[in-house]
């Protein structure tokens, strides 16, 4: 399932003194099964963009084409499109509300009119992939740790069987262990369920480890796009928009300036160690 965003512009409070252009002529194409990173600081327009993907906001100017279908054109199709694109908001654990973990995850599919039997299967599958074991299904979701709560909330979206999963800052506020757990599970979902994943994050290190391609958004425009190696090499451009590359990229750049023959686009510690060793061993 491909996503094609063409000339998308969105203006909040149009015609009022508070008018604000949140998206400014955005063009993006995402292929089926891709793992995309979307980076930008607060207020850059990334939340506005992802809200368009499952038509919480309808395109006013420009269009979004998912699987050949122009979404937002036909209101009667909204429900079908929303079940294709699952959106996990920031702090999704704030949306937990049911008495038990099982019921909370079942809420989405039951509301879609899916049979009890199929719902049960979907809930079990979704909880399995986020790593919640059956013996706690009947526990209250509010008794869980922060990281577990968040995984249950993500399972609630997965149970609707989306083809595209959009996650807004899924690691915010977690400790390193909780973060690694969530990112590992998201990687599993991408690989095992063949989902198209769009990961919104401030953390360059998280993005660096996972994604195929990155879009950097700034002032409502796509400022940079490309493979991680291409993006992380553009240290100045990232800094200009208030972001930073990985520490490794800074080391690589300084070494290049000092005359080391390192290839471009190094952004992980493992990679740079390998390249430095090649250089050092030459001498």
């Amino acid at each position, binding site marked *: 399932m491909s996503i094609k965003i063409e000339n998308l512009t969105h203006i909040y409070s149009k015609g009022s003194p508070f008018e604000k252009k949140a998206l400014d002529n955005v063009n993006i194409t995402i292929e089926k099964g891709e793992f995309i990173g979307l980076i930008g600081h607060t207020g850059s327009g990334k939340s506005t963009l992802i809200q368009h993907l499952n038509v919480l906001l309808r395109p006013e100017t420009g269009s979004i084409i998912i699987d050949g279908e122009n979404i937002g054109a036909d209101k009667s199709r909204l429900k079908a499109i929303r079940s294709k694109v699952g959106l996990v908001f920031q702090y999704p654990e704030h949306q937990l509300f049911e008495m038990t973990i099982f019921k909370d995850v079942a809420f989405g599919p039951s509301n879609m009119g899916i049979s009890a039997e199929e719902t049960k299967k979907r809930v079990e599958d979704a909880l399995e992939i986020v790593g919640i074991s059956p013996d706690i299904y009947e526990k209250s979701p509010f008794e869980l740790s922060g990281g577990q709560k968040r995984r249950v909330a993500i399972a609630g979206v997965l149970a609707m069987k989306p083809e595209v999963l959009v996650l807004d800052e899924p690691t915010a506020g*977690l400790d390193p262990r909780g973060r690694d757990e969530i990112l590992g599970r998201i990687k599993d979902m991408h690989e095992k369920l063949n989902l198209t994943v769009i990961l919104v994050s401030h953390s360059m290190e998280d993005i660096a480890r996972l994604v195929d391609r990155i879009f950097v958004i700034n002032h409502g425009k796509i400022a940079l796009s490309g493979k991680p190696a291409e993006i992380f090499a553009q240290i100045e451009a990232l800094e200009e928009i208030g972001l930073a590359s990985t520490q490794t990229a800074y080391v690589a750049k300084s070494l290049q300036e000092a005359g080391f023959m390192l290839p471009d686009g190094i952004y992980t510690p493992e990679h740079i160690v390998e390249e430095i060793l090649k250089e050092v061993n030459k001498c």
Partner: protein
Amino acid sequence: MEHIVKTENLVFEYRVAIEGDESAIETKAALNGVDITVSKGEFVAVLGHNGSGKSTLAKHINCLLSPTSGGMWVKGISVTDDEQLWDIRSSVGMVFQNPDNQIIATIVEEDVAFGPENLGVMPAEIRQRVDDALLSVGMEKYAENPPHHLSGGQKQRVAIAGILAMRPDIIVLDEPTAMLDPIGRREVMRVVKKLNSEGITIIFITHYMDEAAQADRIIVMEEGKVVMEGTPAMVFEQIEPLKAIGLDVPQVAEIADGLRRAGVALPQGILSVEHLVEEICRLK
């Protein structure tokens, strides 16, 4: 050097009901024999994953929690001395993770004035303290703004100003940057370091290793105990033990470690990009 915070075999236990059995109560130790000292004017970072006891320790410093056993002294006053509780509380300010939970007034300067007003400070003096505090965190331009239009980093700086207006000797910050974007994080770090350079003792809880690397000393907690302690250079050399308890190390330390393992002769204690690059250049 003068100790401003000191604990001796500090234990804090709490009781939880055991599931399925209403009458059974289990005792768990959130702090299990903690011995630390913090010197006046020091900048100490506390690391540890969720549930390791860091926040419980922080809450003891201004007597939000009281020790089950063991001793704790703030500015030489025992925290178990109820008579002097308010002396301790007015010397120790706390900043929490979520900026939205800490701002109560509808105008920035009124929010900052809340603390000193409650301490019974004279109005003219409050005015002075509020202006000083906002200036100190770089938020003086927003004094008359409503706080909900501010960014996360700005709100957090307002929260810090509210603490400063009470003129504390110690500020304890419990994951103050966890909910902020990179710009907000940098703003808060800059303010924290500035306040520390002006003599305020800082106790800074974080999951971000690059922030901890800027402290004078790091304390690592695990299961209610202090498991590592030392300068950032000393602590971040312990890559394996840190990873074993689920913590990160800065990428620079990881690169240095990878090179050392491959037999490259690098000195210990490399924490900054500049230092690493300088050492590698020497090899050529």
